[in-house]
């Protein structure tokens, strides 16, 4: 019995044997493809794709370290977005890892690590920084022409230092996390900690501002996002103020409601050490997952009741994405994990992917 096998190993298995049939995957019979930036032990950077059963699809060397990955909605393409402040992103064929285009940021712009393809597949939107007017947040608009992305336009992000952006469920409105931190051209140094302006912005695809909301604490940088299929938006913060301050490190905007703190237990808030990394929502199971690499913890909550479902150790935990069973989580140090959330008791399995050196975000395609 599957259940007995799990119990026999203390709730854990080193994947493969028990994983049997993956239920989700673009190609029938194949395990989902995990896309992520990854380093090797010597510090070289790669854009990689692995099947969740451990099979390597590609590992393409790239010049700059990447951050998030954006899979094309229909074509076997993905953009590996340069980690801020970056002047390059990489368009890769996800079948074999072939580098199709090294995307250069326009003059006086650098990438901020995140982007999204429009559902039609023709347009890509990327968060960017204006280096002539450092901190002025932009959303770059790119058009896919054949296998090449071309710069077409740019919109205001209506804030400073935009980081992640995502679509609301209609696929026409964007939600943007303006981190609020001003950085200079080629530096990661924070220049305005005394005058930060983080915000959560909703935009029409043409750039029209729909709403702009802020949390009360100005040093609480809104950085990462997840959106549920009912339009609920969750953000993960990184707080630049006093380590002892108690501030909302997770916030939520339910449809039609204001942007407000997501209720965290005090023990969970403390162990995060003022820092959240990646955020994911499983719409079917109505679950929220967040990685906290400074606390070396992975958290899962019920999205609606805010009940804590999992508080588990994982050193240097990094990317998280929803899969059929629950969530896949990567780590800069250890093995990637699958958290199966379909039963009351969440079970962890380690995946047979290479251990460690996984960058902040992962996507499943």
């Amino acid at each position, binding site marked *: 019995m599957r259940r007995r096998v799990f119990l026999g190993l203390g709730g854990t298995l080193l994947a493969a044997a028990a994983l049997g049939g993956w239920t989700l995957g673009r190609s029938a019979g194949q395990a989902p493809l995990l896309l992520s930036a990854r380093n090797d032990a010597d510090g070289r950077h790669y854009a990689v794709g692995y099947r969740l059963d451990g099979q390597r699809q590609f590992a393409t060397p790239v010049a700059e370290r990447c*951050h998030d990955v954006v899979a094309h909605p229909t074509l076997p393409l993905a953009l590996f977005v340069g980690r801020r402040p970056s002047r390059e992103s990489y368009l890769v064929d996800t079948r074999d890892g072939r580098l199709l285009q090294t995307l250069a940021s326009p003059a006086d712009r650098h990438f901020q690590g995140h982007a999204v393809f429009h559902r039609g597949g023709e347009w890509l939107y990327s968060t960017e920084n204006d280096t002539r007017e450092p901190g002025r947040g932009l959303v770059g608009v790119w058009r896919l022409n054949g296998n090449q992305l071309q710069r077409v336009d740019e919109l205001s992000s209506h804030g400073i230092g935009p980081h992640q952006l995502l679509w609301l469920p209609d696929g026409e409105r964007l939600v943007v996390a303006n981190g609020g931190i001003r950085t200079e051209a080629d530096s990661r140094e924070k220049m305005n900690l005394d005058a930060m302006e983080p915000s959560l912005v909703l935009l029409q695809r043409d750039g029209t501002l729909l709403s702009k909301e802020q949390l009360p604490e100005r040093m609480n940088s809104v950085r990462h996002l997840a959106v549920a299929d009912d339009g609920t938006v969750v953000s993960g913060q*990184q707080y630049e103020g006093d380590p002892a301050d108690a501030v909302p490190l997770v916030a939520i905007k339910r449809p039609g409601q204001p942007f407000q703190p997501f209720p965290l237990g005090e023990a969970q808030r403390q162990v995060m050490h003022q820092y959240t990394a990646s955020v994911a929502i499983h719409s079917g199971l109505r679950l929220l997952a967040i990685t906290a690499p400074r606390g070396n913890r992975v958290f899962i909550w019920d999205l609606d009741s805010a009940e804590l479902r999992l508080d588990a150790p994982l050193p240097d935990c990094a990317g998280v994405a929803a899969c059929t069973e629950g969530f896949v989580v990567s780590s*800069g140090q*250890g093995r990637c994990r699958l958290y199966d959330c379909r039963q009351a008791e969440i079970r962890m399995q380690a995946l047979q992917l290479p251990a460690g050196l996984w960058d902040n975000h992962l996507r499943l395609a």
Partner: protein
Amino acid sequence: MLRPALVSLALLATLAGCSPSEPPKPKKEPYAAASAALTDGVLLPAYTRWTDSDRQLADSARALCAGEQDLASARQTYLAAHGAWAALQPLAVGPLSEGNLAWQVQFWPDKKNLVARQVNTLLSSKPQLKQADLEQASVVVQGLTAYEYLLFDPAIDLADLEQKRRYCPLLLAIGSHQQALSARVLAAWLGEQGMASQLKSFPNARYAEAREAVAELLRVQVSALDGLKKKLGTPLARGKTPQPYQAEAWRSGASLASLDASLASAEALWRGANGDGARSLLAAEQADLATRIDAAYSETRQRIAALGQPLNVLLADEAGRASLGQLYDSLDTLHRLHEAELAKALGIQLGFNAHDGD
């Protein structure tokens, strides 16, 4: 080729029929063996000593306050408890690091002398302090640093009956708090799914494989070595005015003893109780690195032993500061050897995303 050899061995075993005795146990994978050996030989003994020393601390507080123990003995008991705590610094994996507990045991750094201020504020507002009052109070007054203040600060004399009446409720409460806290942590190590079992049998709910456990041990060790540099570097304040009151355990003069206790544990992780520590994981061609780390431990510990004076005395003159500076450099070398070379030699990634700000 390995594969045909294995197949033929298996075939041989089948042909030989069922052996009446149990099949030979497969030799433990080296990382699993090291993690298990360190758990039994180094970690569990250190956590047990700490728990024992805190039980003695609570007993000592009761005896002192009942007039059955003199101040000198109570101070010795405190020093033993602090030493046992210092020894845990490179071993703080699992329960101790996950509940924000360290601050409840020791309040350092204490740049603004909060310990003295908060102890007196607390006792003024609650002269009849009860255990529950301490449990709800700030971590500043719950731990060994406040206990040390009561026993060693020149402004307090617990041999004096009047002062004993004022300070004993707090002394007793801290003793009990520490005893309960350390017992709770030890219990989390010993349970069926406890920390010790998770360091000895893989995979489990915490570690997918033994390499993850060894990586975490190394990570905590490296972070403790870095912390020792800070503990020495803060009062030494090279190039500036020394800051003796910024030292750890300055009131009891235990700063250097504490440093040495932490170092001894770091060295125990390296060597193992029976030559079965991290060192045993290095391959033959990494013998040079092993020798250099051996030498760095010997040198650092010899430097501490040779100081011969308490930290505050050494900080007061130039020759003393020069010796402390050399000690700092030895610690720095030791730290770097672990952080860079040992981690790389063992194929361990110490941290990648945690400080990204992304």
